[in-house]
């Protein structure tokens, strides 16, 4: 396994977990009998072969997609038998939705973005040495009424070699 994958999996679990005081990531679907059902928003890794059609499908159902965007490393510290570099790993949560703000459906993209941020801020996945720091969120694209926004954040790990 890779640290990158381990953390990505932990992030997906966190986004889908029940957290006290933080609303779940759901969209409300009205059924044919006019009753309303809360359906969890899909939480997935970024598609291996993303296509416009696939991204439109994600927006149609409302989805949150996690991907790793890269790392930066500090200068190396060599002390005795220990070599260490701090690693800041950046992940992006892409949020897909058909609507920007839709309080009735519970799946407007603004609300999903805020809920994703609330779910990850300060969270420390296993193997990390500090909690998540939010970096920014921004507009990615709009296609045929389907919106995509991204939320960028970082986690800190260390690459350590002991001789």
């Amino acid at each position, binding site marked *: 396994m890779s640290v990158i994958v381990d953390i990505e999996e932990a992030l997906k679990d966190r986004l889908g977990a029940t957290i006290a005081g933080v609303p779940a990531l759901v969209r409300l679907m009205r059924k044919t009998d006019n009753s309303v059902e809360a359906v969890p928003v899909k939480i997935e890794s970024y598609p291996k072969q993303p296509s416009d059609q696939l991204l439109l499908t994600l927006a149609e159902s409302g989805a949150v997609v996690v991907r790793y965007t890269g790392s930066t490393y500090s200068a190396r510290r060599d*002390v005795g038998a220990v070599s*260490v570099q701090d690693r800041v790993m950046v992940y992006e949560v892409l949020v897909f939705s058909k609507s920007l703000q839709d309080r009735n459906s519970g799946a407007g993209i603004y609300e999903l973005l805020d809920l994703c941020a609330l779910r990850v801020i300060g969270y420390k996945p296993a193997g990390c*040495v500090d909690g998540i720091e939010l970096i920014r969120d921004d507009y990615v694209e709009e296609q045929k009424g389907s919106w995509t926004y991204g939320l960028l954040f970082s986690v800190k790990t260390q690459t350590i070699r002991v001789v």
Partner: protein
Amino acid sequence: MSHVQKQILDRVVSDLTGLSATGSRVYRSSEHPVTTATMPGLSVSLGEELAGEGSISATIKVVRLTVLVCVEGDDFDVSTKVLADIEAALYGDYSAGRYVAGLALSVLYRGCSREYVTSTAVRHTRLTVQYDVEYQTMDGAAETAL
């Protein structure tokens, strides 16, 4: 034999190894790894040396001892406990009017700076503790403390 500076550093590292909070996490270095596994921990180094008073054939030398204390988080309780342990260990190594296993004429506390560092992956409190260690050698015999 080795230079008295090295003998002093070896002895100080030995004195500071096994303290209650820092244990065996003592590094002979001016840098610290700053990982969760190495904190709370110490890094011990010697710096600038100046000539003090002396006689015609002997020189008193004053070398700056720096102990870097790294403690995870913004922790005042542990860091001050480590400070107290260091002071007790250094001044406790005293017999027959000499310090540091008889190598030093005196050990003088010179101060301590405190900084909370957030720029590393592991946020930590960093104390830089400084002492002056005074010793004397015959001129031309830097490996034997008088």
